[in-house]
């Protein structure tokens, strides 16, 4: 966990100190470092929408806004803005990679231990409880939602409130019966 936090701090520092003067070496070095530490982090770039966003954020303002002082393939563009926009995208790439690499190292157990070390015992207990009860509650939700006649319920808001009220009550009831308090009561 300490190593993961150290890498996170280093990645964020690199992203925040990225500037026009150091981007030529700092960006490739930082990306290479993440690649050595955790290649899985690069999977976030498999989403085409992210690339489309990057292209739009770099290209469109450069072609449309400000003083167009350079030409590429016959298209006039703002070269100063292009440099700054590229820097902005590089910074976001570094931050995304760093955060993804950090969360890839997290597991429920590690997180739970971390919360304990931070003296957040109650939060840790609630988190563990929620995680443990998730499958059972999921079953209850599915069963109750299937039981609601949606068409009728949506036509009559009172019916919807009553149906959802029963669902919530059933959830809380199930949670109370299978939670640690219930097992303590049964044990006693």
């Amino acid at each position: 966990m300490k190593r993961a936090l150290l890498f996170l701090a280093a990645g964020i520092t690199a992203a925040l100190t990225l500037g026009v003067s150091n981007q030529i070496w700092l960006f490739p070095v930082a990306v290479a470092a993440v690649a050595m530490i955790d290649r899985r982090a690069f999977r976030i770039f498999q989403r085409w929408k992210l690339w489309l966003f990057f292209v739009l954020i770099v290209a469109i303002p450069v072609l449309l806004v400000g003083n167009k002082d350079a030409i590429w393939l016959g298209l006039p563009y703002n070269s100063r803005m292009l440099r700054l926009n590229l820097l902005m995208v590089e910074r976001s790439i570094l931050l995304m990679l760093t955060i993804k690499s950090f969360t890839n190292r997290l597991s429920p157990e590690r997180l739970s231990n971390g919360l304990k070390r931070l003296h957040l015992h109650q939060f840790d207990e609630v988190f563990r409880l929620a995680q443990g009860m998730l499958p059972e509650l999921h079953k209850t939700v599915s069963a109750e939602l299937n039981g609601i006649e949606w068409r009728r319920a949506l036509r009559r808001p009172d019916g919807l409130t009553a149906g959802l009220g029963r669902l919530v009550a059933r959830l809380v009831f199930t949670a109370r019966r299978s939670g640690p308090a219930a097992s303590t009561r049964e044990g006693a």
Partner: protein
Amino acid sequence: MEITLGTALKGTRLPFSGAILACIAAVIVLTGRAFVQRRGAMLMMGGVAALLKIFSVGTVIAGPFFAILIEALLAEAMVALLGLTRPGCILAGMAMVTYTVLHPLITQGLFFGGRIYEVYWAMARQVGQWLHLEIAHLALFIGLYLGIHAIAGGAAGWFASRLGRVAVAELEKLERSA
């Protein structure tokens, strides 16, 4: 519930899925608060939901994680101010759902830096020039957009205050019959 519905809503590619999900989250968190009469309960719920989101498969981590936490914090602040009354629930819902409009801008500011706002501003001015629109028109559009979100959030909060009361009564019935 929010994680399951969130994934399902993303799959449907419905417009305003973020706002719809925030309405559902507002109903869940405010109804849940009716059962836990303690300060900080909604923040705790938000924290647990955000952490569960981290471990749910196929989600991008940072955005939804901070969105859930901040929404829970806003709801907690409103309920701390006005109590779990109908106005408190309505205001909490309004704050939660309106925040979904601001969240992408805040996240982009964190990831891309303050420069992204300059780019957006320059683009808005350029497009405004082409369409012969003024800043007042843009402000009106933003106001309307925020207002629609606030109304939806307020409705979710109002529904949650009713649902909370019904659910508490139903739970009492269940516990008596058990």
